[in-house]
Structure formats: structure tokens, C-alpha cells
């Protein structure tokens, strides 16, 4: 299925501590595999993720960035993911507008009970990034040599 078996993307996943990080833990304890290309960064809440972090990841060579948080309405801090949702919607729309392939960024709500969803999400995201190929439009060339 994979079009580009040689290409091993770098993928950064920001996960909120209370839902998605726990969901990733559950995926782990349930032994639900997903590619090692995904590296998780723990943040307290999806609302902690600054657009700067995402652009920085791309700058330094990430090929895809995914943000996972509690389902809307379930935020540990009650409202954090609502703000994150607006911020990411606008940011992703801007990246699309600038001609960056819009599959390179994603937001997914994953609860602590959704180990299966976490694993499936990561599998499908990696698949998408592999099909898009390396990120050339948002990277900083200095990091590539």
C-alpha cells in the first residue's frame, strides 16, 4: 500500500496529559502497534500548544505534526481544547492557504479510554504523511545537511 517504503517521516505528536497521553499509554499497554516514526510530546492541555511549536517542528525537519486532546466538552481544564480547536483550525487553514499540503497537520480528540483510536489515528496519519513525502515547503534548509 505504501507508495514510498524508503521514506521514514519524522512525526511530532503533541498529546494532552489527561486524555490523549493516557490514550497513548493505553494503546501501549494494549500492545496496539503504530509506526515508530511518531514521537510524543506531553503537554498539560491541547491549549498549551503554540502555533510556533508546530512551525518550529516543520522548520527543524518534521514531516507531519498531530495534536491530540480530550474530546470537546471533556477537557480537564474545561475549556482548553475549545481554544485549541479554534487556534488550530485557523492555523491549518493558513498553512493550506500558503500552499502547504493540508494533510501534514491534524487534530484528533482521543480520550484516555481510546487506545484503539490512538493507534488507528497514528497509523492513518503516518500513512498519509508517507504518501505526501518529505516536507519541503516548510523546512529550513540549514537543518537538512
Amino acid at each position: 500500500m505504501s507508495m514510498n517504503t524508503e521514506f521514514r517521516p519524522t512525526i511530532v505528536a503533541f498529546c494532552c496529559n489527561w486524555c490523549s497521553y493516557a490514550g497513548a499509554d493505553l494503546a501501549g499497554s494494549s500492545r496496539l502497534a503504530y509506526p515508530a516514526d511518531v514521537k510524543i510530546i506531553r503537554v498539560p492541555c491541547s491549549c498549551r500548544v503554540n502555533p510556533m511549536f508546530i512551525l518550529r517542528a516543520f522548520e527543524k525537519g518534521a514531516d507531519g505534526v498531530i495534536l491530540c486532546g480530550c474530546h470537546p466538552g471533556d477537557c480537564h481544564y474545561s475549556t482548553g481544547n475549545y481554544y485549541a480547536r479554534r487556534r488550530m483550525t485557523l492555523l491549518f487553514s493558513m498553512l493550506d492557504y500558503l500552499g502547504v499540503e493540508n494533510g501534514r497537520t491534524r487534530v484528533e480528540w482521543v480520550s484516555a479510554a481510546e487506545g484503539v483510536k490512538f493507534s488507528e489515528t497514528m497509523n492513518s496519519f503516518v500513512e498519509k504523511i508517507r504518501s505526501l513525502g518529505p516536507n519541503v515547503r516548510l523546512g529550513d534548509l540549514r537543518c537538512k545537511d
Partner: protein
Amino acid sequence: MLKIKRSDLGTLFAKIAENNELYLPVKAAGKTNFAAWDQDADVDLDTLKTVKSPKDAFFPQSEGLYSCDREEGKIKITAEKLQDAPFVVFGIRACDVRGIAVLDKVFLSQPVDTYYAARREHGIIVSYACGAPETSCFCKVFGIDAAQPEGDVVTWMVGEDLYWDAKTEKGQKLTAQVAELLTEADAALVAAEQEKIRSIIEKLPNSHLSLEGWGAEAAKTRFDSPIWEQLYKPCLACGTCTFVCPTCQCYDIKDYDTGNGVKRYRCWDSCMYSDFTMMAHGNNRTSQMQRFRQRFLHKLAYYPANNDGMFSCVGCGRCVDKCPSHLNIVKVIKAFGKEGK
């Protein structure tokens, strides 16, 4: 005096580019700036002033100095390669040629800036007389003749011909490379064109600006003038004037962390910025008035004090055109002139 048909310039550029990197005014996304030439470049010799001056060719806005990489627990330092191939900058106006002379005094005096020196050594300046000077021009004030620029080769556009006159050894070498495309020409037509240019320059509103009171002594007499307090107020503290200026030469040195090492580079800095010359203890210029004053006194007093009275303004008028608040050196010169101080 040699010449080439305007319509054959594409061939000339291609010929030059065979042996040299070639930079010239290129229009891209509606604005003309000096850029590397290629077959598809939209060469623009009609726009009088490129947005940025051609100083980039010798003193780029950003340039790598060296990089540090970790190797087996040790740090390996690799210096950036110096310019070692010839390159031609075509179409530099008289004021901008003088601008390079201003930079030379800074970067070529001891200690010599090796990055700049290498570029100057390998760079060939083909200057280009100003067919239609603009309202904002005031190069005459600084003794610059827009009709007769300096340079390794000087060119004029007269009618449908480009006239070519090599002035230096470098210029002659370049001329030899393209000799097959050039034909002998009558210098009298150029002289007539020069007369036309000079007559327009006489009519420019700022051609007779008085520089009285400026120069080395202004550092003392005008530093504490209350006029600065009046003048600076509209300044937004952006760097437009410094970045379009052909003579501003301040730079900052920064490190870029690539994750595997550090690339040290320098980039233009602007004395208009609040963090200009910021040091651990703070900043020696704490107000925008002080920063504003610094820029103009540098051009009109400090630089002349250190360089035999040579001003580091060349009257190109880019700041006059580009300042978002319409502040500029002409207004500064006039403000002091009015006061008669």
C-alpha cells in the same frame, strides 16, 4: 566608447554569465531588486532605483561566517567559503557606486573584513547613468554626478543603444570577454545625454540642499539640539531606511542551532531597532530619539569625522521614498538648516 543595441542586451548578459556570476536589476512580484541573472529573469533597466540598494552583492543581508559541528566529542569549526569567482554587478547607479566606496572605508580598513574584501576583489562594477532622475534624488549634494558614475565599466542608455566605457583594468578584462558583441560608438551622443541628465538634476527640488553645519563638528554642535526631539516623533522604529540604504553597514552576529550544530551568521542590523547594541547591562541608547539621532549623526557627522569629511549619505533618496512615516534625511538636513545652526 563602445555600444550595443538594447535589443541585444539579452545576448550580452548571457555572454557575461558565461564567465561570471551576474547580478542586475530584476523585476519580481512587481518590484525591482538586484538578483542573479538567468534566462527567465525579467531584467528591468528602466526603474531608476531598485528597492534595496546593490550593497547586497558585496555585503549580503545575511551571510554565513562559519559553522560548528560536534564530531566524536570534539567541536569542528568550518569557515564559510570566501568569494573566489568573478562576478559582475550590472546597472549600479552613480549614488550606489559611491555607496560601495563608503562601505570600503569601513570594511577594508584595518582590521579588514575578509568576507567583504573577497567580494570586492572578485566583483566587477558595471555602473549605469541615470536617464531620468527622480524627485527624491539629491546625489548632487554629495558631489555625485549621476551622468558620469564611477565603476569598472560605465554605461549609458541613449535611445536604443547602451553605451559602454571601460574605466579600469577589471573593466577592460570584462570588455574583452564580451568584445564580440560591442561595436565602436560616438562619445558625442553620450555627452549630449549627460547634458540632458545634468539639466534635469539642476531642476530637482533637493539638488541644492545646503550641508552647512554638517560634518565632523556637527557631532558637538548638533548632538544636544532640541530639534531631534521634534523630528523623531513619527519614527516607527522600523528598519526600512537602514535596509534600503546603500551605505548602512551595521550588522549583528547570530547563531542558528540546526540541532546538530551551530551555524554562525551575520545579518544587517538597524540602529532604529530597540535591541540595537543591547548589552548585558542594558542599552546605551534607551529612547527612540537617541536611536534616530544616532542614524543621522552617523551619516552626517561621525562618519565624516573618521573619513576625511566624506559623508555616508549618497543622496539616493530611497529613504525619502520608502519611510512609512515620510521621515528622511532631507527633512533632517532642512530642519537644522532652517534653524541656521
